[in-house]
């Protein structure tokens, strides 16, 4: 159930099931602070995946500062997403509201993407958002294989068989014997990465 309340700054903020989805004081300032925490991560990314639509201010801020960056907003509450689209008039072709990671284009997943969490949106839906993060991290099957196969340079890598319960790391990839099937330049990129493992 969506309610609209007015923040002290005069902006409209959504309340969902009695919970505010953005700051009651100043949602625009809050969105600025949210973006600052991710700014260095966004640099060099080919797309951004926002987990949580909130009241839309953080999305508006993101696309106003990075207008050419394709943005995927994952939120299972389609009613909230529709309200946000209407309120902000998001008509850019590079902003997509979806309810699960599987709907993100393969092109976006095949290149550097950054996952931006909007925690105020998560209340009551923590497990749902957490499961989307697990998918997007690519550290568990079948997503690991999917992400690997989306990268032409890594497609020749055999499926890494990991007998551990926890998430996969780049160390598992580096210890995979089929690494030598890859193009030399891709092996070098992976080995350079290996040098950064602490």
């Amino acid at each position, binding site marked *: 159930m969506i309610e609209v309340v007015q923040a002290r700054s005069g902006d409209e903020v959504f309340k969902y099931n009695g919970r505010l989805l953005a700051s009651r004081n100043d949602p625009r300032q809050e969105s600025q602070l949210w973006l600052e925490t991710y700014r*260095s*991560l966004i*640099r*060099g990314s*080919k797309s951004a995946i926002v987990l949580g639509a909130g009241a839309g201010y953080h999305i508006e801020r993101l696309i106003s500062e990075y207008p050419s960056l394709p943005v995927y907003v994952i939120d299972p509450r389609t009613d909230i997403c529709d309200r946000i689209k209407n309120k902000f008039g998001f008509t850019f072709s590079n902003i997509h509201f979806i309810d699960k990671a599987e709907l993100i284009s393969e092109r976006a997943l095949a*290149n*550097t*993407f*950054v*996952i931006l*969490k909007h925690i105020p949106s998560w209340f009551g839906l923590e497990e749902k958002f957490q499961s989307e*993060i697990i998918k*997007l*991290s*690519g*550290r568990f099957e079948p997503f*690991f294989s999917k*992400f*690997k196969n989306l*990268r032409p*340079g*890594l497609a020749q890598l055999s499926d890494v068989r990991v007998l551990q319960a926890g*998430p*996969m*790391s*780049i160390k598992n*990839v580096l210890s995979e014997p089929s690494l030598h099937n890859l193009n*030399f*330049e*891709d092996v*070098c*990129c*992976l*080995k*350079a*990465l290996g*040098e*950064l*493992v*602490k």
Partner: protein
Amino acid sequence: MKVLAISLLRIGDLLMASAAIQGLKNKYPGCELHLLINRECESARDLLKFVDKFHFFERSQIQSSLGEVERNIFEGYDRIKDLTTRLSENKYDLIINFSQTRLSGYLMSAIRAPDKVGLEMMDQTLARFGVPWFRYLNTWMGTRYRGVFHYSDICTFGAGVNTDNNRIRLSSTDSGWRPKPDCKNIFIQPFSADAKKEWSFESWATALSYLSRTIPNSHFFILGSPAEKVKSEDLNALLQERSVSSEVLILTFSELCFALKSADALFTLDTSIKHLAASSGCPIVELALGSSDVQFTGAHQKDSLIISGVTECFPCNHSSPCSQSTHRCADSLNPNLVGSAFEHFLNKNWSALSVMAYDYQNSIQLSRTRLTQDSIWWLEKLNSNQKTKLSHILDKWAWKYVLNQLHHGVLASYGSEALKVSQYMKNNGIDRNDLTAIELDAVHLERTLYSLNVVMQKSVKAQRFDECLQLIFTSDLDESIKVCIRDFTSTYGDVGLYAFRQIQNLMSDLQAHIQVKIKTIKALSQQIPEVFI
């Protein structure tokens, strides 16, 4: 022509390599010069205005993606692949890697270019270097032997740029800061990113109190980055309590580079600031503590003073924490003695410093930086004897000769090299009385190396590496060389044919070096005695 220089170390290393990087502009007139550096070094960009385009390696961003399970497992790969693809598309004619890390070596391999100089990793242990200077940098400098050259000189020679111009030249910006009139304006850099290299506030305060009493009208400017402002103010407050005239000065790199031109001296820890000062021609006193590798990274200008402790653990390993229960190398330095050395330095009283170096050699090490006529840097320990100084100079000359591969020439020019050495000896008051003793030591070492190299060749045929290594370790080779070979073997684990070949190369280099040293000594001995007068 398009050239890419790679420097993926810290700001200090980038500044030290900058003379060589700038030299590329002179070597290839009209070339488009690009530079790949860590994003963390972006603040140095204003100092390097001769670079046409910067590229950044997002080191911390990539590193954090590896450890955070909520980030995509391939994010780091994507970012590196994206960078190397973008760089390959620039179609560089030449890439020069000035860093001695495997990371940079792998990146070098992943970027396409017809000509590459510097470390290029072909496999976990297989590397290419392009020129012997970078092989020297990557093999000897990674061991405790350390080698004899300054990093800046290795970069300059490795890049093959004009050695007459290997002084660091950085761009500067006027912030409006002006020195205090009628005062000795002394800059203090008391902070380092590495706690092992720092000296306690109490020690700084005692040393500066001493200086404020002995140097009339001295005024101290405590330097710091914006992030160090609070610490700078704390030290300043302590100095004010002791009636020391001081203030905090927070400037950007390029502003500081400008301000240093007007400073009377810089008193600094081992930080990048000393390289700014070297560029500005500011007299420098360096306090070398912890892992400061003074032989390799001292301020590249003549007549700087380097002060260090004499604890056996100094210099320690860069990447590991202090192994001692107390910070011995720092605590052992008497602040009044350090202050006194600084005072002599300001008065350009090198003979007093030499006396001090002898008198207090159990508690302080004083060294003077020198430049040869072709701008090769070396460090003269002020308490070392004439034989050590001369042997050190000859070592340097011989290594330079070998690494430039001049010894392979049909008519090797030992006579002309000896003339340069003798000229240098004459200019710096180094006599040749010890030449015979040095020659005897060198001949003995050459015989040992020769016999070991013969055994090594046989071992390769018989594939019996361990026995041969034992022979090396029990030989009368200098302990520093054995330590180097031990370090080298430990990086390979089990010594197989490839690793053994690498050790063989090191031993051959050493033998070539010692042979050149002997020939130079002989040429020196045969020269007209007047040269030495």
